[in-house]
Protein backbone atom coordinates (compact mmCIF):
# COMPACT_ATOMS: atom_id res chain seq x y z
CA UNK A 1 0.00 0.00 0.00
CA UNK A 2 2.99 2.29 0.43
CA UNK A 3 3.21 3.01 -3.29
CA UNK A 4 -0.42 4.05 -3.41
CA UNK A 5 -0.06 6.27 -0.37
CA UNK A 6 2.97 7.93 -1.93
CA UNK A 7 1.10 8.55 -5.18
CA UNK A 8 -1.82 10.11 -3.31
CA UNK A 9 0.42 12.22 -1.13
CA UNK A 10 2.17 13.64 -4.17
CA UNK A 11 -1.05 15.19 -5.41
CA UNK A 12 -2.30 16.60 -2.16
CA UNK A 13 -1.95 20.31 -1.66
CA UNK A 14 -0.42 21.51 1.56
CA UNK A 15 -2.32 23.67 4.02
CA UNK A 16 -5.47 23.88 1.97
CA UNK A 17 -7.77 23.51 4.92
CA UNK A 18 -7.83 26.92 6.55
CA UNK A 19 -11.62 26.90 6.84
CA UNK A 20 -14.31 24.98 8.67
CA UNK A 21 -17.84 23.77 8.06
CA UNK A 22 -20.28 26.67 8.22
CA UNK A 23 -17.86 29.21 6.77
CA UNK A 24 -18.78 31.21 3.73
CA UNK A 25 -16.06 30.56 1.19
CA UNK A 26 -15.05 31.94 -2.17
CA UNK A 27 -13.69 29.31 -4.53
CA UNK A 28 -11.60 30.44 -7.49
CA UNK A 29 -12.18 27.68 -10.02
CA UNK A 30 -10.32 27.55 -13.31
CA UNK A 31 -12.51 26.83 -16.33
CA UNK A 32 -11.02 25.75 -19.62
CA UNK A 33 -13.05 26.67 -22.69
CA UNK A 34 -11.24 25.39 -25.74
CA UNK A 35 -8.03 27.39 -25.74
CA UNK A 36 -8.95 30.11 -23.28
CA UNK A 37 -8.77 29.73 -19.56
CA UNK A 38 -10.64 31.84 -17.07
CA UNK A 39 -11.34 31.85 -13.37
CA UNK A 40 -14.87 31.53 -12.09
CA UNK A 41 -15.71 32.43 -8.52
CA UNK A 42 -18.21 30.36 -6.62
CA UNK A 43 -19.18 31.86 -3.30
CA UNK A 44 -21.35 30.05 -0.83
CA UNK A 45 -21.79 28.26 2.45
CA UNK A 46 -19.58 25.25 3.11
CA UNK A 47 -22.12 22.51 3.88
CA UNK A 48 -20.00 19.41 4.17
CA UNK A 49 -16.61 17.81 3.62
CA UNK A 50 -16.42 14.18 2.63
CA UNK A 51 -13.85 11.44 2.06
CA UNK A 52 -10.14 11.71 2.80
CA UNK A 53 -6.80 11.99 1.05
CA UNK A 54 -6.87 13.11 -2.59
CA UNK A 55 -10.53 12.24 -2.80
CA UNK A 56 -11.55 14.83 -0.22
CA UNK A 57 -14.41 16.98 -1.47
CA UNK A 58 -16.35 19.97 -0.24
CA UNK A 59 -19.97 20.81 -0.87
CA UNK A 60 -20.70 24.52 -1.29
CA UNK A 61 -24.23 25.92 -1.41
CA UNK A 62 -25.38 29.29 -2.60
CA UNK A 63 -28.66 30.95 -3.53
CA UNK A 64 -28.74 32.01 -7.14
CA UNK A 65 -31.82 34.03 -8.19
CA UNK A 66 -33.85 32.32 -5.47
CA UNK A 67 -32.72 28.83 -6.44
CA UNK A 68 -30.38 26.83 -4.28
CA UNK A 69 -27.25 25.70 -6.12
CA UNK A 70 -24.83 23.20 -4.69
CA UNK A 71 -21.46 22.27 -6.13
CA UNK A 72 -19.05 19.60 -5.03
CA UNK A 73 -15.38 20.50 -5.47
CA UNK A 74 -12.46 18.09 -5.07
CA UNK A 75 -10.35 19.88 -2.50
CA UNK A 76 -7.00 18.99 -4.01
CA UNK A 77 -7.98 19.70 -7.60
CA UNK A 78 -5.33 21.59 -9.57
CA UNK A 79 -8.18 23.60 -11.08
CA UNK A 80 -8.85 25.30 -7.76
CA UNK A 81 -6.65 28.37 -7.72
CA UNK A 82 -7.39 29.45 -4.17
CA UNK A 83 -10.01 29.37 -1.50
CA UNK A 84 -10.90 32.48 0.47
CA UNK A 85 -12.85 32.62 3.69
CA UNK A 86 -15.38 35.44 3.53
CA UNK A 87 -17.11 34.87 6.84
CA UNK A 88 -16.68 32.42 9.69
CA UNK A 89 -19.80 30.63 10.82
CA UNK A 90 -20.82 29.28 14.20
CA UNK A 91 -22.26 25.81 13.78
CA UNK A 92 -22.59 22.74 15.98
CA UNK A 93 -22.72 20.10 13.27
CA UNK A 94 -20.28 18.61 10.77
CA UNK A 95 -22.89 18.38 8.01
CA UNK A 96 -25.27 21.28 7.49
CA UNK A 97 -27.83 19.50 5.31
CA UNK A 98 -30.67 20.98 7.42
CA UNK A 99 -30.03 24.33 5.70
CA UNK A 100 -31.60 22.90 2.54
CA UNK A 101 -35.02 22.75 4.17
CA UNK A 102 -34.86 26.24 5.62
CA UNK A 103 -36.10 29.37 3.90
CA UNK A 104 -35.17 33.00 4.44
CA UNK A 105 -33.70 34.07 7.72
CA UNK A 106 -33.82 30.56 9.15
CA UNK A 107 -31.36 29.44 6.48
CA UNK A 108 -28.66 31.65 7.94
CA UNK A 109 -25.64 30.57 9.89
CA UNK A 110 -24.62 32.75 12.82
CA UNK A 111 -21.27 34.44 12.54
CA UNK A 112 -18.47 33.21 14.71
CA UNK A 113 -16.92 36.01 16.67
CA UNK A 114 -13.98 35.04 18.79
CA UNK A 115 -13.24 37.38 21.66
CA UNK A 116 -9.62 38.26 21.96
CA UNK A 117 -9.60 37.79 25.73
CA UNK A 118 -10.86 34.19 25.53
CA UNK A 119 -8.26 33.20 23.00
CA UNK A 120 -5.55 34.85 25.05
CA UNK A 121 -6.49 32.76 28.10
CA UNK A 122 -5.99 29.56 26.19
Amino acid at each position, binding site marked *: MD*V*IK*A*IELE*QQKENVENFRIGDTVKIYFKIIEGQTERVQIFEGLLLAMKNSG*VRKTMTVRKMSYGVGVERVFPMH*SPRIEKIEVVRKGRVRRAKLYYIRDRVGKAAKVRELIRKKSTTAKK
Partner: protein
Amino acid sequence: MLGLIGKKVGMTQVFDERGILTPVTVIKIESNVVVAERTIDKNGYSSCVIGAVDVKKKHVTKPYAGQFKEICDPKKHLVEMRDFEADVSIGDVLGVDFFKDIAFVDVEGTSKGKGFQGAIKRHNFSGGRATHGSKFHRGLGGTGMAASPSRTFKGTKMAGRMGNAKTTIQNLRVVKVDEDKKVLMVKGAVPGPSQSMVIVKKAKKK
Protein backbone atom coordinates in the same frame (compact mmCIF):
# COMPACT_ATOMS: atom_id res chain seq x y z
CA MET B 1 3.54 -8.19 -29.42
CA LEU B 2 5.24 -6.00 -26.89
CA GLY B 3 4.72 -6.58 -23.21
CA LEU B 4 6.15 -6.93 -19.75
CA ILE B 5 5.30 -8.66 -16.49
CA GLY B 6 3.97 -6.51 -13.66
CA LYS B 7 2.31 -6.69 -10.30
CA LYS B 8 -1.08 -5.17 -9.60
CA VAL B 9 -0.57 -2.93 -6.60
CA GLY B 10 -4.10 -1.60 -6.29
CA MET B 11 -6.35 1.22 -7.33
CA THR B 12 -6.43 4.92 -6.56
CA GLN B 13 -7.35 8.21 -8.19
CA VAL B 14 -5.15 10.85 -9.77
CA PHE B 15 -5.73 14.24 -11.34
CA ASP B 16 -4.88 14.09 -15.03
CA GLU B 17 -3.44 16.92 -17.13
CA ARG B 18 -6.89 18.53 -17.50
CA GLY B 19 -7.45 18.44 -13.75
CA ILE B 20 -10.02 15.67 -13.90
CA LEU B 21 -9.97 13.04 -11.19
CA THR B 22 -9.30 9.74 -12.98
CA PRO B 23 -9.59 6.23 -11.49
CA VAL B 24 -6.35 4.36 -12.08
CA THR B 25 -4.85 0.96 -11.41
CA VAL B 26 -1.26 1.04 -10.23
CA ILE B 27 0.94 -1.66 -11.76
CA LYS B 28 4.45 -2.15 -10.47
CA ILE B 29 6.94 -3.16 -13.13
CA GLU B 30 10.31 -4.06 -11.74
CA SER B 31 13.25 -5.15 -13.81
CA ASN B 32 12.11 -7.67 -16.41
CA VAL B 33 14.92 -9.74 -17.89
CA VAL B 34 15.08 -11.27 -21.33
CA VAL B 35 15.86 -14.89 -20.50
CA ALA B 36 15.72 -16.55 -23.89
CA GLU B 37 14.95 -15.96 -27.52
CA ARG B 38 13.27 -18.25 -30.01
CA THR B 39 14.12 -17.73 -33.63
CA ILE B 40 12.56 -18.87 -36.88
CA ASP B 41 15.73 -20.69 -37.94
CA LYS B 42 16.00 -22.67 -34.75
CA ASN B 43 12.48 -22.97 -33.40
CA GLY B 44 10.24 -22.28 -36.36
CA TYR B 45 8.77 -19.15 -34.81
CA SER B 46 10.11 -16.03 -33.18
CA SER B 47 9.48 -15.04 -29.60
CA CYS B 48 11.07 -13.64 -26.51
CA VAL B 49 11.01 -15.19 -23.04
CA ILE B 50 10.77 -12.66 -20.24
CA GLY B 51 11.23 -13.29 -16.56
CA ALA B 52 10.36 -11.17 -13.55
CA VAL B 53 10.44 -11.19 -9.74
CA ASP B 54 13.49 -12.72 -8.08
CA VAL B 55 13.33 -15.98 -6.16
CA LYS B 56 16.03 -17.68 -4.15
CA LYS B 57 17.90 -20.40 -5.95
CA LYS B 58 17.18 -22.93 -3.21
CA HIS B 59 13.44 -22.44 -3.70
CA VAL B 60 13.39 -23.61 -7.30
CA THR B 61 14.21 -26.93 -8.90
CA LYS B 62 17.57 -27.35 -10.59
CA PRO B 63 16.13 -27.76 -14.09
CA TYR B 64 14.14 -24.55 -13.62
CA ALA B 65 17.16 -22.63 -12.33
CA GLY B 66 19.18 -23.98 -15.24
CA GLN B 67 17.29 -21.77 -17.67
CA PHE B 68 18.73 -18.67 -16.04
CA LYS B 69 22.30 -19.91 -15.51
CA GLU B 70 24.61 -17.01 -16.27
CA ILE B 71 21.94 -14.49 -17.22
CA CYS B 72 20.42 -13.62 -13.87
CA ASP B 73 18.97 -14.96 -10.62
CA PRO B 74 16.02 -17.32 -11.05
CA LYS B 75 12.74 -15.54 -11.68
CA LYS B 76 9.32 -16.40 -10.34
CA HIS B 77 7.41 -15.68 -13.51
CA LEU B 78 8.38 -16.65 -17.04
CA VAL B 79 6.33 -15.48 -19.98
CA GLU B 80 6.91 -16.11 -23.65
CA MET B 81 5.89 -13.26 -25.93
CA ARG B 82 5.33 -14.14 -29.58
CA ASP B 83 6.94 -11.82 -32.17
CA PHE B 84 8.47 -9.36 -29.74
CA GLU B 85 8.76 -6.19 -31.80
CA ALA B 86 11.49 -4.45 -29.81
CA ASP B 87 15.15 -4.98 -30.52
CA VAL B 88 16.38 -6.90 -27.48
CA SER B 89 18.94 -9.58 -26.74
CA ILE B 90 19.38 -12.11 -23.96
CA GLY B 91 20.24 -10.51 -20.63
CA ASP B 92 18.63 -7.15 -21.36
CA VAL B 93 16.81 -5.55 -18.47
CA LEU B 94 13.54 -3.83 -19.28
CA GLY B 95 11.76 -1.46 -16.93
CA VAL B 96 8.72 0.82 -16.83
CA ASP B 97 10.28 3.30 -19.27
CA PHE B 98 9.40 0.67 -21.87
CA PHE B 99 5.86 2.13 -21.82
CA LYS B 100 6.93 5.75 -22.22
CA ASP B 101 5.79 6.06 -25.82
CA ILE B 102 2.81 3.74 -25.55
CA ALA B 103 -0.59 5.39 -25.11
CA PHE B 104 -2.85 2.37 -24.76
CA VAL B 105 -2.26 -1.07 -23.27
CA ASP B 106 -4.02 -4.41 -22.89
CA VAL B 107 -3.73 -6.00 -19.46
CA GLU B 108 -3.96 -9.72 -18.94
CA GLY B 109 -4.46 -11.34 -15.56
CA THR B 110 -6.28 -14.06 -13.67
CA SER B 111 -9.69 -12.87 -12.52
CA LYS B 112 -10.86 -13.25 -8.93
CA GLY B 113 -12.50 -16.61 -8.25
CA LYS B 114 -16.22 -16.35 -7.54
CA GLY B 115 -16.90 -20.02 -6.68
CA PHE B 116 -19.96 -21.90 -7.91
CA GLN B 117 -22.38 -19.33 -9.31
CA GLY B 118 -25.81 -19.46 -10.91
CA ALA B 119 -26.49 -18.57 -14.52
CA ILE B 120 -27.69 -15.04 -13.67
CA LYS B 121 -24.38 -13.96 -12.21
CA ARG B 122 -22.22 -16.12 -14.44
CA HIS B 123 -23.79 -15.50 -17.84
CA ASN B 124 -26.00 -12.45 -17.26
CA PHE B 125 -29.26 -14.38 -17.65
CA SER B 126 -32.39 -12.41 -16.89
CA GLY B 127 -34.34 -14.50 -14.38
CA GLY B 128 -38.05 -14.32 -13.72
CA ARG B 129 -40.39 -12.22 -11.61
CA ALA B 130 -40.05 -12.37 -7.88
CA THR B 131 -43.77 -11.95 -7.13
CA HIS B 132 -47.24 -11.90 -8.81
CA GLY B 133 -47.57 -15.69 -8.68
CA SER B 134 -44.34 -16.31 -10.51
CA LYS B 135 -42.76 -19.69 -9.87
CA PHE B 136 -39.65 -18.95 -11.92
CA HIS B 137 -37.08 -16.88 -10.10
CA ARG B 138 -33.37 -17.34 -10.76
CA GLY B 139 -33.35 -20.58 -12.77
CA LEU B 140 -31.73 -21.28 -16.12
CA GLY B 141 -34.79 -21.76 -18.28
CA GLY B 142 -34.55 -24.18 -21.17
CA THR B 143 -31.28 -25.88 -22.03
CA GLY B 144 -32.27 -27.55 -25.29
CA MET B 145 -34.91 -28.60 -27.78
CA ALA B 146 -37.25 -31.65 -27.75
CA ALA B 147 -37.18 -35.25 -29.05
CA SER B 148 -34.79 -34.11 -31.70
CA PRO B 149 -31.93 -33.68 -30.85
CA SER B 150 -32.99 -35.18 -27.48
CA ARG B 151 -29.78 -34.01 -25.82
CA THR B 152 -28.27 -30.80 -24.51
CA PHE B 153 -25.59 -29.34 -26.70
CA LYS B 154 -22.08 -29.04 -25.36
CA GLY B 155 -21.12 -25.62 -24.19
CA THR B 156 -24.65 -24.62 -23.15
CA LYS B 157 -24.45 -21.84 -20.58
CA MET B 158 -25.25 -23.19 -17.13
CA ALA B 159 -24.34 -22.66 -13.50
CA GLY B 160 -20.81 -23.52 -12.46
CA ARG B 161 -17.42 -22.26 -11.37
CA MET B 162 -16.94 -18.61 -12.18
CA GLY B 163 -13.83 -16.46 -12.25
CA ASN B 164 -10.22 -17.57 -11.69
CA ALA B 165 -9.70 -17.57 -15.44
CA LYS B 166 -7.33 -15.75 -17.78
CA THR B 167 -8.92 -12.41 -18.62
CA THR B 168 -7.70 -9.59 -20.85
CA ILE B 169 -8.93 -6.02 -20.64
CA GLN B 170 -8.18 -4.13 -23.84
CA ASN B 171 -7.39 -0.49 -24.61
CA LEU B 172 -6.64 0.90 -21.17
CA ARG B 173 -5.19 4.40 -21.39
CA VAL B 174 -1.75 4.91 -19.85
CA VAL B 175 -2.19 7.81 -17.46
CA LYS B 176 1.33 8.01 -16.09
CA VAL B 177 4.69 6.26 -16.18
CA ASP B 178 6.62 6.84 -12.97
CA GLU B 179 10.20 5.72 -13.31
CA ASP B 180 11.22 6.53 -9.74
CA LYS B 181 8.55 4.35 -8.22
CA LYS B 182 8.78 1.83 -11.09
CA VAL B 183 5.08 2.19 -11.54
CA LEU B 184 2.67 2.33 -14.44
CA MET B 185 -0.79 3.82 -14.04
CA VAL B 186 -3.61 2.82 -16.36
CA LYS B 187 -7.13 4.17 -16.40
CA GLY B 188 -9.74 1.76 -15.10
CA ALA B 189 -9.74 -1.66 -13.51
CA VAL B 190 -7.51 -4.63 -14.20
CA PRO B 191 -8.43 -8.32 -13.64
CA GLY B 192 -7.36 -10.14 -10.50
CA PRO B 193 -6.72 -9.32 -6.85
CA SER B 194 -4.05 -6.90 -5.64
CA GLN B 195 -0.50 -8.27 -5.54
CA SER B 196 -1.26 -10.65 -8.41
CA MET B 197 0.80 -10.98 -11.56
CA VAL B 198 -0.43 -9.23 -14.68
CA ILE B 199 0.95 -9.01 -18.19
CA VAL B 200 0.87 -5.52 -19.66
CA LYS B 201 0.95 -5.46 -23.44
CA LYS B 202 0.84 -2.79 -26.07
CA ALA B 203 -2.77 -2.43 -27.21
CA LYS B 204 -3.59 -4.70 -30.11
CA LYS B 205 -6.44 -2.62 -31.51
CA LYS B 206 -5.13 0.93 -31.16
